[in-house]
């Protein structure tokens, strides 16, 4: 756990997106969630949120153009991918798991850490890279 936390911590509090460190932190976050033993966390270990797949389908023309694969081959690959994934209902993931994911991915791309909004408030802008806040604001839960 100590090693995981050290690897997940952004160097100097600065976000490191796109490099090996970013990938490693995401991977370690998945491992940590897996080890937590929660069913939803287990799903996140090898799962994908359902809406993410819908978004992927929206970009099918771009995928076809970029890969230059025949459509039937790309669809077959998509089917293989679907068979390999466990689709997860976002609503079934408890707030505590979101918070844990946010903490583990602190300092990385905001779009990968949706619960950042809970802590930073509605003025945060989507997709913006930012270091962790200087002070610890109280956690606000929905409802």
């Amino acid at each position: 756990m100590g090693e995981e936390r050290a690897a997940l911590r952004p160097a100097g509090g600065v976000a490191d997106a796109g490099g090996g460190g970013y990938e490693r932190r995401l991977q370690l976050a998945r491992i940590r969630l897996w080890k937590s033993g929660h069913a939803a966390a287990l799903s996140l270990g090898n799962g994908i949120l359902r809406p993410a797949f819908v978004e992927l389908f929206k970009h099918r023309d771009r995928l076809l153009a970029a890969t230059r694969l025949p459509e039937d081959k790309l669809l077959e690959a998509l089917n293989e991918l679907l068979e390999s994934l466990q689709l997860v209902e976002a609503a079934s993931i408890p707030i505590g798991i979101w918070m844990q994911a946010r903490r583990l991915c602190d300092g990385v791309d905001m779009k990968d850490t949706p619960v950042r909004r809970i802590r930073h408030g509605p003025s945060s802008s989507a997709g913006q890279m930012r270091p962790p806040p200087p002070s610890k604001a109280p956690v606000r839960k929905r409802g």
Partner: protein
Amino acid sequence: MITVESDDAAIRVTIPRGELDIAQVEAILRPFRFASLVAGSQMSKAEAMRIAEDSKADWWEKNERRFAPPEA
């Protein structure tokens, strides 16, 4: 005992019946099938990352309110 033989044309993996059930074999083969299907892809890693970023941005734009605190 699982054995692997290869020649210029193919790689043959032999799995004795009883060591793995067919569902396990299917699960093991799935990533190979996927890799085989997309082997001819000409998409660059940069383009793949752009599409992934766009997908995430679209999703986030529509869903961020679900994770925001309720309006005061």
